[in-house]
């Protein structure tokens, strides 16, 4: 990979940017698609009404997907690449989320109340790194199964603590209900700014009541601004993790997954590499938690430390493809998509409102075995997204064990999908600077 050596060409941007985009064409296209999604959604639902609403997840849902998708990627970073299933990964999500809330509320030692969101996000992630170090010290001495069980146990302990520890809610409220940033009345509002620290122009306030314009462009909806700002952070995290995966360090992680005994025998102190990988994954897991809270403004134990938070990441990773960095992210879109598709009216539309509007009432009210079709739909489909997601999960485990992205990658040979796309386009384009080999990687 030698993008730095491309010095030719003029124009407004240095030429390596063009080269990079060409090498990572697939990534660029996907990023653009994500960036225009909220506008596309508004346009399509305007054009096609319920049909589009039925199929497409709302921007609000996509916002959740960004944070939880990043979490699923961080889970895959350790689990899919070193083979050590981090069943307690929710601990890091929780640490990241709670750190932001408690930090803002001034409940943490050393950290002054109303510290900026970006700083809290960063320190919280470092706290998660330290936690991973301590957890790793205990659990990496043993084999993979013990690692999974010990991490799970530690996360469960945190879950119980977060449910019972009165310190979290200094007022009178119940810790199981969660904590909100800015809830004790003596601290200011939670106004999380996302962007480049100290550069005013490159920051926006996220949250339901945040800014309505980004980079000076008004989009009129704080939700879209939050989506774009959080999306940018998620993209940055993805690129960082991808970079690590493709480094010599990442290759050692893969060697450990493939055959830890041999990795040791060729001279790797695998303990250090496992620790390093675990700490990195904890960092990004905590960032995901912080981003989640950035928009929600509050967190509760069930949405953070609970083992199902890891469970969903695992399901997303298996559907999307364990050991493909982006796979779990897409797996999450798929999961949430199914859920929203089958959700009740008023929370994203989906199948039910679509059928209600498009099928004649007579059909919906037809009586089969004592239930009308409408009632049957409510009983068996709507609101049971989790159930169908579970079925889809089982189908994936049985028939697509390497997941969506893994399957695509196998289909297009050992070369990564991105190379395939870039090379395909390269062939069709008249070569401008004689550079033919596309050297992008995708994950």
């Amino acid at each position, binding site marked *: 990979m030698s993008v730095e050596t491309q010095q030719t060409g003029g124009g407004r941007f240095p030429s390596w940017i063009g080269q990079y985009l060409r090498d990572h064409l697939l990534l660029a296209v996907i990023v653009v698609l994500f960036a225009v999604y909220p506008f596309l959604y508004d346009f399509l639902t305007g054009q096609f009404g319920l049909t589009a609403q039925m199929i497409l997840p709302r921007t609000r849902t996509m916002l959740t997907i960004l944070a939880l998708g990043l979490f699923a990627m961080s889970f895959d970073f350790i689990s899919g690449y070193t083979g050590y299933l981090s069943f307690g990964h929710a601990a890091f999500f929780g640490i990241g989320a709670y750190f932001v809330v408690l930090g803002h509320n001034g409940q943490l030692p050393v950290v002054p109340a109303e510290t900026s969101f970006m700083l809290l996000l960063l320190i919280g992630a470092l706290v998660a790194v330290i936690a991973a170090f301590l957890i790793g010290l205990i659990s990496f001495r043993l084999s993979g199964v013990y690692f999974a069980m010990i991490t799970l146990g530690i996360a469960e302990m945190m879950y119980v603590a977060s449910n019972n520890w009165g310190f979290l809610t200094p007022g009178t409220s119940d810790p199981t209900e969660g904590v909100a940033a800015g809830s004790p009345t003596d601290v200011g509002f939670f106004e999380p700014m996302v962007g480049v620290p100290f550069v005013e122009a490159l920051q926006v306030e996220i949250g339901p009541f945040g800014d309505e314009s980004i980079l000076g462009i008004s989009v009129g909806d704080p939700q879209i601004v939050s989506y774009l700002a959080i999306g940018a952070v998620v993209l940055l995290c993805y690129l960082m993790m991808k970079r690590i995966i493709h480094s*010599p360090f990442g290759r050692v992680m*893969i060697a450990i997954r493939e055959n830890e005994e*041999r990795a040791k025998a060729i001279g790797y102190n695998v303990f250090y590499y496992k620790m390093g990988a675990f700490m990195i994954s904890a960092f990004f897991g905590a960032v995901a938690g912080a981003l989640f809270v950035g928009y929600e403004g509050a967190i509760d134990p069930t949405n953070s430390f609970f083992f199902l938070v890891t469970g969903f990441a695992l399901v997303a990773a298996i559907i999307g493809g364990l050991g493909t960095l982006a796979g779990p992210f897409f797996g999450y879109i798929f999961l949430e998509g199914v859920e929203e598709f089958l959700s009740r009216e008023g929370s994203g539309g989906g199948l039910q409102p679509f059928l209600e509007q498009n099928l004649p009432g007579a059909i919906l009210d037809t009586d089969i075995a004592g239930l009308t079709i409408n009632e049957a739909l409510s009983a068996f489909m709507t609101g049971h997204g989790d159930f169908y997601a579970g079925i889809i999960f089982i189908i994936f485990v049985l028939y697509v064990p390497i997941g969506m992205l893994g399957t695509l990658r196998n289909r297009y040979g*050992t070369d990564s999908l991105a190379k395939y796309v870039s090379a395909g386009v390269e062939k069709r384009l008249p070569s401008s600077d004689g550079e033919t080999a596309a050297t992008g990687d995708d994950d």
Partner: protein
Amino acid sequence: MLRTNRLTKRFGGITATDEVTFELGDKLTSIIGPNGAGKTTFFNLLTGALTPTEGTVELKKDGGWVDITGMDTHETAQMGIHRSYQITNVFPTTSVLENVRVAAQAHGSNSVRFWRNVNNFDEHYEEAYGILDRVGLADKAEVPAENLSHGEKRQLEVGIALAGDPDVLLLDEPNAGVSSEDIDAVKAIIEDVATDHAVLLVEHNMDIVMDVSERIVVLNQGAVIADDKPENIQGDPDVQEAYLGGYEAGDLEARRQDTAASQGSGTEPDGGGLA
């Protein structure tokens, strides 16, 4: 290069290695012995995969002897002792090239660089290609290791051990299970790598052992019962007794079943190949 002093390993009641005092020099040395004699266990003690019950292992480094008893496998590998495995032990889904490349990368400090793309480290690729040439796998570089034929996997086994330019190479039955057509290829590799490494070879195929070795050590029930030039080994009465010839028809078969029954493990697919 490498020496042991009264090296002993006991598993419960079994003494798998019995007070072995041995020094490996520049001569290509083979270890032979019936199934369960303790050859693999001896290798495991030398590399640190097993901790000895008693005795020491020392390696010559820069003219002096360094005690490496009790070191872990990654440490002995860094010290320059590499091994290949009797039962193929590679990175199955990564390419043949990556199998060797990642082994080459283990030596030096590049492995901790998590912020640079792996393709910037040409030296490891060059070393890996050189080794693939040497073990005859250059045209299989991009093939996932699990898709190789059995013979090719044995070649890759040796290739991985070669990466990082070890001082001592321990080859545990590189011919295990290799079909007779492919044996010559593996034999050529053994002779080739012996030109620039101290090699200790475990081998069941007597034709190869007699042909390539300059020195043969015979193990029986964990103990060294002979240590000599190949021509003398064949005539040694103790060896005849324990191992070579000198047995009644069916004796060896019976012995093998004995050991197999008592160990419940440790047999390899080639079934001995004792000439």
